[in-house]
């Protein structure tokens, strides 16, 4: 019961960490503490609060938050290793731990090597992956995921067209069929995957723009030097313009994904909610991006743009994973034996969990 809450706390703390990291770059404080892992010779946690002045405040606070999140992920990985029956979830915990350790080392290297663009961009990008991992763990350990998004298996079910057809087909064939998990929608699965991938690429472009100092290479918005297309080009203008084109591309994919959810799965709250949230976050993100340019990269607006971009990514990831929920095997005390792929499974069907065990269970439910 506590594990899902803790996993959610870790995911939320990762978002806070990304915001703190955004503040470091936005305020140009990345090198205000020249040593690492110490801080001006102090052990990190012994550095006096009174000396957290100027850029040190942002850089040192980022280090403190990062080490806290790292500790939380260590606890999460151990907890999953001891309590989580699903091997793939345990492995996600170990992967998150490896990623956050690598992330810490990248953060140290980028300070010691005076913020080389490649390392700083890798640091920013790996932060998104760590966030994705912690959110995926929080999702996979949630009760909704474990139940296959059927709130009350014995009560009225949210059945959409594809499930209804499956149930009818099973009835015709004389099989005793029951709904045990959310249905597959291959179209939604594909468009959601592509949307998440496009958002991630867009964030990589954004990180490149930030760390190469191209954030104001095009000083106006929504036009570029008064035109739709920049009248002159250099590498910074190109990367900045690519980020704007990327934003438009992301918007198209998010609208397509959300539109598909509203059209075909409007009654499935586990898809409808992230779809609505995606649209809200998209509107907010474009607004923050515009304000970042128009305010001359005001550091709080700029950092909110960074963390909101990460929230767009993980919201799309959650939608993608939920769209694929039926493809995941369930094991563990609550949901052992539910079907892997077929949302409508005849009673007594043979199934296999993710640890390779297979058995026949009559009337098993998710």
């Amino acid at each position: 019961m506590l594990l899902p809450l803790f996993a959610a706390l870790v995911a939320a703390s990762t978002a806070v960490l990304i915001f703190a990291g955004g503040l470091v770059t936005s305020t140009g404080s990345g090198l205000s503490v020249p040593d690492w892992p110490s801080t001006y010779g102090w052990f990190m946690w012994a550095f006096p609060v009174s000396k957290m002045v100027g850029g040190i405040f942002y850089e040192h606070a980022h280090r403190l938050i990062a080490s806290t999140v790292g500790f939380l992920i260590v606890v999460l990985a151990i907890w999953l290793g001891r309590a989580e029956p699903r091997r793939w979830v345990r492995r996600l915990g170990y992967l998150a731990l490896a990623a956050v350790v690598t992330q810490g080392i990248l953060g140290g290297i980028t300070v010691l090597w005076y913020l080389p663009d490649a390392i700083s961009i890798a640091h920013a990008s790996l932060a998104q992956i760590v966030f994705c991992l912690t959110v995926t763990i929080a999702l996979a350990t949630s009760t909704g995921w474990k139940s296959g998004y059927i709130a009350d298996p014995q009560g009225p079910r949210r059945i959409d067209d594809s499930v209804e057809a499956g149930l009818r087909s099973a009835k015709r064939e004389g099989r005793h069929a029951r709904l045990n998990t959310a249905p597959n929608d291959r179209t939604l699965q594909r468009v959601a995957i592509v949307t998440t991938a496009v958002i991630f690429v867009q964030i990589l472009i954004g990180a490149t723009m930030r760390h190469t100092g191209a954030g104001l290479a095009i000083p106006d918005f929504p036009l570029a030097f008064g035109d739709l297309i920049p009248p002159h080009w250099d590498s910074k203008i190109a990367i900045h313009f690519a980020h704007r084109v990327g934003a438009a591309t992301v918007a198209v994919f998010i609208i397509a994904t959300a539109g598909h959810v509203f059209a075909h799965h409007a009654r499935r709250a586990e898809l409808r909610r992230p779809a609505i949230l995606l649209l809200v976050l998209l509107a907010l993100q474009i607004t923050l991006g515009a304000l970042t340019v128009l305010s001359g990269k005001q550091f709080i607006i700029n950092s909110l743009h960074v963390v909101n971009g990460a929230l767009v990514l993980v919201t799309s990831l959650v939608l993608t994973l939920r769209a694929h929920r039926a493809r995941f095997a369930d094991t563990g005390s609550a949901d052992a034996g539910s079907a892997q792929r077929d949302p409508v499974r005849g009673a007594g069907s043979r199934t296999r969990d993710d640890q390779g065990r297979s058995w026949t269970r009559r009337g098993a439910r998710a």
Partner: protein
Amino acid sequence: MIRRLDVRSLVAAFGAAVALTSCGGGTTQTSAPAGSGAAPTAAADSAGASNVTGKVTFTGTPPKAAPIKLSSDPFCQNANPGLTAETEIVAPGGAIQNVFVYVKDGLGNRTFTAPAEPVVLDQKGCQYTPHVLGIQVGQPMQIVNSDDTLHNVHGMAKANKEFNTGQPIQGMKMTHTFSTKEVMLPFKCDVHGWMHAWVGVLDHPYYAVTGPDGTFSLKGLPAGTYTIEAWHETLGTQTQTVTIGAGETRDVAFAFKAS
């Protein structure tokens, strides 16, 4: 587990951190303070030495010096409450301060011995003093923290090696030497984002920085034809060619406009 280190162990630990973090061009080391950043005195041909003097002016309406927000560090706010940006300092008569004027070309294969006397760059009142300075390759630069707050000394070199060293304690000093010429080499304090200094690293002693009256003087030049460049951090550069005979003094004027 958590404890505050005493000052001695702090300095020792900080020295280790310096060794880890500063891979600067030339060397960085702790040294006792000595002298001040004096103007160059060496000349290759002392007999019949010539001079180039002049003034750098600004035409047009000079920009107003922007006030700097110091609230991120209470020490700075108290120590230097009226601090303004030093990017363009123009006197009422149009004279520009902090222009680095130097011989860019014309010295041929002459070589010059670097002075042993260090040039001092001080961090005082949360600003670099001086804001613009020159130094010879191999000449020691002594960097001092006179403030009761933390500074990091970040030399953002391109031709030399970049370095970044912390000076968390008032009175700390470090000495750095540069291994190759570089005009200009920016210094920055990342703790206090407004703190910038510019260092012209040359392999000869013929350079000067304009004072409040905008004048400069390059003394002790051998007779010859030289390209003189005037550099300003926001106004850019201008060059002029002058020919001077033995014992002559030539006057050169540079006039910058708002960019």
